[in-house]
C-alpha cells in the first residue's frame, strides 16, 4: 500500500529540501549585500566627515580661529535633519560653537549615540548614531560627526526584502510541493490500482503512459512491458496445458482401449501380443510428445545458450539435405539443395539444435505434402542476415493460419486425422528464437516456403 502520510511522500520531502535550500540562498545573498553596502556606506560617511574636517581646519589655518568659530556656528545652525554634529571647543574648555555639548575628547574615530549626546537642539532621530572624530585646531579642538542614518535605512530595506523574499520562497516551495506531490501521487495511485487489479487476475490491465515522458512514465513503460511478458507466459502456459489436456486425451484413451481389448482377447496369444505392441507404440508417441513439450519449455527458458559456438550454417544445411535426400526420394519426391556459399556463413549456435530445426522443417514438408513432393533447401545472404529456406510444393498453410501453426500442439483442421503431435513448428520457433533468428512463412505458390533469418556471427 502507498503511505498517505504526507511527510513520507517523496515530492514533499524534495520540496522541503528545496525550500530550505532556497531560504538559505536568499539569506546568504542578502547578508552579502548587507555587508558590502554597510561597509561602503560606513566608509563614505567617514570620508564625508574627513572632508568637512579638512575644510574647517583649512579655514582655521588660513583665516584664523575666529572665522572658524563663525563657520562652525553657521554650519551647526544650517544642519537639517540633524545628520551631522559639530562642536568647537577652545583650549580653556569653553564651548565656542556647535550643535552638541559636553563631549569628552577622544582620539581616533568614536561612535556616539544620539541618546547620550547633550544636544543644543532637540531635533533629529533619537536612534541616530554618529561617527565622529576630534581634530586639533589652532586654539582648541573640533568635533565633526556624521549620522549612520543611511546605514540604518539600508538595513531596514534589506530586512524588509529578506522577509518578503523568504515568505515568497516558502510559498512557492510549498505550492510546487503540493502540486508535484498530487501529480505524482495520482500516477502512483493509478500504478497501485492497476497492479492490484493484475494481482487479482486481470492480467490484461495496463498502466497509462502520459505524453510527458518523465521518470514515472519510464517506470510505467517498464511495468507494461513486464506485464505484457507475464501475460504472454501465462497465456502460453494456459494454452499448452489446455492443449495437452485436449490432445493427449485422445492417444491416452486409445491406449486404454487397446489394453482393455488386449485383456479381453482371452487365449489368442498372437492377438494379445499384437495389441500390447501397439499399446507400447502408442505409449512411445505419448512420451515423445511430452519430451518435445519439455524441450520447447526449456528452450524458451533460454537453456543451452551457454553451449553456443561459431559454426557454418551452410555445413549444417548441406549435411541435413544430404541425410534427407534418400528419404525424400524413397517417398517419390525430390530434394534440391542450393547451398552454394563461397562467402562466410558463420553463425553462433548449437549444431544439434539447428540440425533438429531443419530436420523438422524437411519432415514437415515431406509429411504434409502429397507424393512427388519437391523440397528446396537453400541458403541466401541478405544484408547482415543469413536466410535458410525450406520450401515445398504441398498444400501450404492458409495465410490466416500462419501465426497459429507456431503454437504448441496446434494442428490444421485438415491434419487432425493424420498422426503428428503438432509440436514440430513450435520446436522450430523455440530453437530459432534461442538463436536470435526469426521464422517467416510465405506462399511458395503452390506450397509453403519457410524462411529462417539468422543473424551472422559477430566478429
Amino acid at each position, binding site marked *: 500500500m502507498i503511505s498517505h502520510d504526507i511527510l513520507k511522500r517523496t515530492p514533499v520531502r524534495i520540496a522541503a529540501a528545496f525550500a530550505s535550500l532556497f531560504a538559505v540562498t536568499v539569506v546568504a545573498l542578502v547578508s552579502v549585500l548587507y555587508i558590502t553596502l554597510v561597509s561602503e556606506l560606513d566608509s563614505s560617511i567617514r570620508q564625508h566627515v574627513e572632508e568637512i574636517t579638512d575644510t574647517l581646519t583649512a579655514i582655521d589655518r588660513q583665516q584664523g580661529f575666529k572665522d572658524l568659530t563663525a563657520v562652525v556656528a553657521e554650519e551647526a545652525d544650517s544642519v537639517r535633519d540633524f545628520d551631522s554634529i559639530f562642536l568647537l571647543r577652545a583650549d580653556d574648555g569653553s564651548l565656542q560653537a556647535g550643535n552638541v555639548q559636553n563631549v569628552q575628547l577622544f582620539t581616533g574615530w568614536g561612535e556616539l549615540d544620539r541618546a547620550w549626546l547633550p544636544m543644543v537642539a532637540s531635533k533629529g532621530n533619537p536612534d541616530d548614531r554618529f561617527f565622529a572624530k576630534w581634530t586639533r585646531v589652532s586654539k582648541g579642538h573640533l568635533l565633526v560627526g556624521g549620522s549612520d542614518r543611511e546605514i540604518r535605512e539600508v538595513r531596514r530595506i534589506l530586512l524588509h526584502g529578506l522577509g518578503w523574499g523568504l515568505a515568497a520562497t516558502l510559498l512557492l516551495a510549498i505550492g510546487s510541493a503540493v502540486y508535484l506531490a498530487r501529480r505524482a501521487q495520482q500516477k502512483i495511485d493509478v500504478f497501485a490500482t492497476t497492479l492490484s487489479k493484475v494481482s487479482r487476475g486481470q492480467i490484461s490491465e495496463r498502466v497509462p503512459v502520459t505524453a510527458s515522458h518523465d521518470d514515472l512514465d519510464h517506470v510505467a513503460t517498464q511495468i507494461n512491458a513486464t506485464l505484457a511478458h507475464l501475460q504472454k507466459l501465462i497465456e502460453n502456459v494456459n494454452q499448452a496445458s489446455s492443449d495437452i489436456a485436449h490432445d493427449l486425451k485422445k492417444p491416452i484413451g486409445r491406449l486404454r482401449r487397446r489394453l482393455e481389448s488386449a485383456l479381453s482377447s482371452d487365449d489368442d496369444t498372437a492377438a494379445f501380443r499384437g495389441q500390447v*505392441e501397439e499399446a*507400447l507404440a502408442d505409449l512411445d508417441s505419448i*512420451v*515423445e510428445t*511430452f*519430451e518435445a*513439450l*519439455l*524441450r520447447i*519449455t*526449456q*528452450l524458451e527458458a533460454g*537453456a*543451452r545458450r551457454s*553451449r553456443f559456438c561459431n559454426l557454418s550454417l551452410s555445413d549444417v544445411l548441406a549435411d541435413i539435405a*544430404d*541425410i*534427407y535426400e*534418400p*528419404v525424400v526420394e*524413397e517417398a517419390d519426391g525430390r530434394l534440391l539443395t542450393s547451398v552454394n556459399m563461397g562467402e562466410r556463413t558463420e553463425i553462433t549456435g548449437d*549444431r*544439434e539444435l539447428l*540440425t*533438429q530445426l531443419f*530436420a523438422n522443417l524437411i*519432415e514437415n514438408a*515431406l*509429411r504434409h505434402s502429397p507424393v512427388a513432393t519437391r523440397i528446396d533447401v537453400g541458403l541466401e545472404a541478405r544484408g547482415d542476415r543469413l536466410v535458410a529456406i525450406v520450401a515445398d510444393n504441398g498444400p501450404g498453410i492458409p495465410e490466416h493460419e500462419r501465426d497459429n501453426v507456431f503454437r504448441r500442439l496446434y494442428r490444421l483442421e485438415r491434419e487432425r486425422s493424420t498422426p*503428428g503431435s503438432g509440436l*514440430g513448428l513450435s520446436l522450430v520457433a523455440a530453437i530459432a528464437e534461442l538463436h536470435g533468428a526469426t521464422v517467416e512463412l510465405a506462399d511458395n505458390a503452390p506450397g509453403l516456403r519457410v524462411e529462417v533469418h539468422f543473424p551472422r556471427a559477430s566478429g
Partner: protein
Amino acid sequence: MRILVVEDDTETSAYISHGFGEEGHVVETLADGRDGLTQAMGETYDILVVDRMLPGLDGLSLVRALRAVGNKVPVIFLTSLGGVDDRVDGLNVGGDDYLVKPFAFSELLARVNALARRPHLKDAETVLRVGDLEMDLIARTVTRAGDNIELQPREFRLLEVLMRNKGRVLTRTMLLERVWSFHFEPRTSVVETHISRLRTKIDRPYGHELIHTVRGSGYTMHDQP
C-alpha cells in the same frame, strides 16, 4: 558381466536387474549415491548404470568422483525426460552413454553391450571385416568378394559403425546418434532408408545378407547364416 545399478526408483531398478538377470548377467542394485560410490570404488564391475538424480550424492558427482580417482569403468547415465542439457553434462563428467527414461530394456541392453564389450581396437587395425566384406579405414574403400563398392561418405560412416560393432545390436537411436548426430527422434524413416540403400549396395547383389534386422530392437552385422 557384473553390472552395478545405482537407481533410487525401486521399480526401474527391479525392471533393469530382472532384464539383465535374464540375459545371464550379475546385477547389484543400490539406491543411494554415496553407497553407490563406495561400492563402485571397492569392487570391480564391467559397467555402471547410474541415475542422474539420487539421494545422498547425485549421479554426476558420483561419476566425477570415480573419474577423479582414475576409475575408468564404463558408465551409462539414466535421466528423466526433457533435460536438454543433461546428455552433454553427463558426457562432460566422464559418462560414456546416456539414456532417457522411460526406455525399452532392449535399448539399455544394446547400449550396455556396446560399451562393455567394446574391443580395444589395436591401432594397427585399419581393416574391418565381416564375412567377405572388407573396409579399409585408411584408403576408405569397401570391397565385397573382391568387388570394389562405391559408398557415399555417410553410407561409409554407417557401415563403419555397424562393422565396428560386429555381432552386437545397434538400435535405431544409437545409429541416429552415432552416424547422423541426431539427438532426437525423426518422424520419418531416416534409419530405414539409409540401411536399405546400404543393403542395396553391399548385400543384395551377393545373395548372402550381412546386415540383419533385429525385430523390435535394431540392426546387427554378422556372417552367420
